[in-house]
């Protein structure tokens, strides 16, 4: 078993959410006895609001040999922390045909989202998982979702976290339901075990239950 997880997100405003997804998956996998690696800060930390950023994790039941190739060459678990990324990039580059598990944070109809995938990307897709993580997450503070806030509030509350230790708990907000949906649909990690490492356990379990899976395209 070998899974490569690439989490796509938006610079600064949803950086933390993406990092939490990869961190929780790698942590849980390691606690379960797998070989695991997490790259929570790598080249695309451009400190630009909305810019595409990625976080990587991988785990396997055999030692990971190419441990210094940080960017996953063959991602089969892909998480889009924000739905418009589906229009932004070919996140299926290197994915084995028909094996991509794509988790999208969206409240839209999965069929509508599928319209945005061209044939060559559809060929990689094995499972489309749509979870309304924003709706399922626990609300924190006045306005927990970075990307619906205005920039002044955003700058006050969350500066770039590049190179810093985590200041806030890992696995809160929209990250939690995303992890839940990913683990439930991905299948190889037990949901309960992963939930132990997620700060907002309840939201993670909500995500594990309340998502839509499409396997026919």
């Amino acid at each position, binding site marked *: 078993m070998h899974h490569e997880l690439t989490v796509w997100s938006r610079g600064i405003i949803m950086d933390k959410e993406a990092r939490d997804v990869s961190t929780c998956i790698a942590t849980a996998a390691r606690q379960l006895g797998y070989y695991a690696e997490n790259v929570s800060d790598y*080249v*695309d930390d451009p400190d630009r609001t*909305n*810019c*595409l950023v*990625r976080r990587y994790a991988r785990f396997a039941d055999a030692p990971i040999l190419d441990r210094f*190739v940080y*960017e*996953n*060459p063959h991602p089969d678990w892909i998480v889009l922390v*924000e*739905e*418009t*990324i589906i*229009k*932004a*990039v*070919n996140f299926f*580059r*290197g994915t084995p045909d028909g094996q991509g598990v794509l988790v999208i944070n*969206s409240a*839209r109809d999965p069929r*509508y989202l599928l*319209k*945005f995938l*061209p044939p060559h990307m559809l060929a990689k897709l094995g499972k489309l998982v749509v979870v309304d993580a924003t709706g399922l997450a626990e609300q924190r503070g006045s306005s927990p979702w970075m*990307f619906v806030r205005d920039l002044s509030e955003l700058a006050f509350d969350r500066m770039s976290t590049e190179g810093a230790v985590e200041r806030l708990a890992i696995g809160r907000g929209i990250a939690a339901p995303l992890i839940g949906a990913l683990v439930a649909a991905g299948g190889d990690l037990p949901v309960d075990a992963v939930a132990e490492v997620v700060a907002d356990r309840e939201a993670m379990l909500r995500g594990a239950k309340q998502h839509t899976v499409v396997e026919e395209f």
Partner: protein
Amino acid sequence: MSVRGTHVPEHLRLPIAGVTPPPTEKDGQRLFPTGNFRFFRPVYKDKTPPCNHACPTGEQIQKYLDYVKHDRYLDGYLTILQDNPMPSVTGRVCYHPCETACNRAAHDEPIGIRGVERFLGDFGLALQENPVIGDLPPLNGRTVAIAGSGPGGLACAYHLRRRGYASVVFEALDRPGGMLRAGIPAWHLPEQVLDAEIAKLAGLGGIEIRCGVRIGAAADQGGGQPALDELASRYDAVFLALGQDVGRRLDVTGAQARGVIGALEFLRETGLGRPVTVGRRVLVIGGGNTASDAARSAIRLGGGEATIVSLEAEADLLIQPEDLAQARDEGVGFRPEHALARVLTDEAGNVRGAVLTRAGLARDETGVVRPKIIPGTEAEVACDTILVAIGQVQVLDWLPARATERGLIRADEYGRIPHDSGRIFAGGDVMRGPSMVVDALGDGKRAARDIDRVLSAEPLRPDDPAEVMPYEKLNTAYFRHAPRTEAPLTPAADRRASQVTEVTLAYSREQALAEADRCMSCGVCNGCDNCYIVCPDVSVLRDARQNGHYSIRTHYCKGCLVCVQECPTGCLEKVPEMDFDEPDAVVRMETAFAPYDGAHAEQAPFTRQLIEDAIADYDASRSNSQSIHPNGGGGTP
């Protein structure tokens, strides 16, 4: 720096500064597209300004104000004529719902739209040739009968002509104009202006006005006057804009006395230039605009005094505010919250006075507002003329009973009356009760459109719902406060002396320009260039400096929404990016800076081609000239 002599693997070749075009130059954005970067996309979406929405004729006021701003008076005039055939009339007499709705009222004061309309209307009347004539379609051979040559009938005839239909307009009086002539005093609307506007319409060709024909008069009264069925069979369609020219009668003792005159009849006789006399002490019964017009005309005619007796309280008078102020200046007296109890006559049957009682308006148990007399408050006043302005009706007994209701024509939402032919429309006062000139003009326009639809076998359908721009959505920081220029007035003393001296005067060119300049262009792009200037990513393109001629380069726009924030008029709005699902709305990052696995860069073919072309150009320029100026100029040929 040169890459020549150095081996750089093709997939790592990056654009070179100075050789490849930066994003600010032509093709630059093609080289550096950033893919979909946004949650929201800025979209130009013009909305309906409140003035335009409030105008019953749908005049594109924002548009013609913009033309006035740019000294394009003919374009402005033609813009009005698309909706309203007689701007010189409405520019004088309209009760300007546009100004009432104007967003500028929330900012400082509403724009003097009526004055600008008059300015453009008079500009158009002064033209040697009617500029509309050249654009009219040829007549299509079909003719519509129009009953009434008031604003509704004339507007219908005009808009029908614009659609290629001929029309015959029947007018009961011996001169056309309806209430414009017989209801509105000449000091509001000079006769020559009205005549010129009507002549302009008659000159379009295809509009025939037959005066002295009252539609529907019983055969025993007028003999041979056309009735409804006859019109319906002889013409392709019928538009009934009969107006309401019969004043309501007083139901008090002495109402038959000599000197008790209907205000409408008084205004009509005056308007038609017939000899009318009033006394020097005039009472006007009623609290509306007709009462005000009658009182002011009576002062001019009799040289005495006039007092308006109204059930309404002083603050509730139904007189247009500026008319009320002018009436006060001219010395019109007011007896609010009074009612006429009876008329006192002398032995010869002439009015010698009136008994007034305190009264008011109150809701009865069914919720209907009714007059309420306070008993025991009767008091006598001396007067020699009583003008009655307590409402108006129309004689409709010649219409089928199902087509009338409580003295008005009953019509469906399209103004069509119940009739077997389905081609009889109505509009104006006779359908909606006493209302504004511009309401009738709007009804005429609407009827012409619907008659065209019926005769072209198209279904009738309601107007599309309009999205009206509210004040709150404007970026008002861009609009300086500027006071409204009130239209100049003739001094009150001069006004009192003459029946024909116009009360409200025209804007000068400078004043019209100043008023037009105050327009905030609510919801409509006015080409201010703000989006073009503020875009930090060179993603707003402007091909021509014209309204709405900007475009957003969606391959490069980051969705920062600065343009939306800084759009003064609110015509730019943000739309969720995910709502755009057409194939070409997807722009994936496939370029030099795309974050791909392994290497930093893998170039798309078109990007590679662009770079190679740029390098080739650069090399060619080097071989053509010995010395290279850093900025690309100045090389010896």
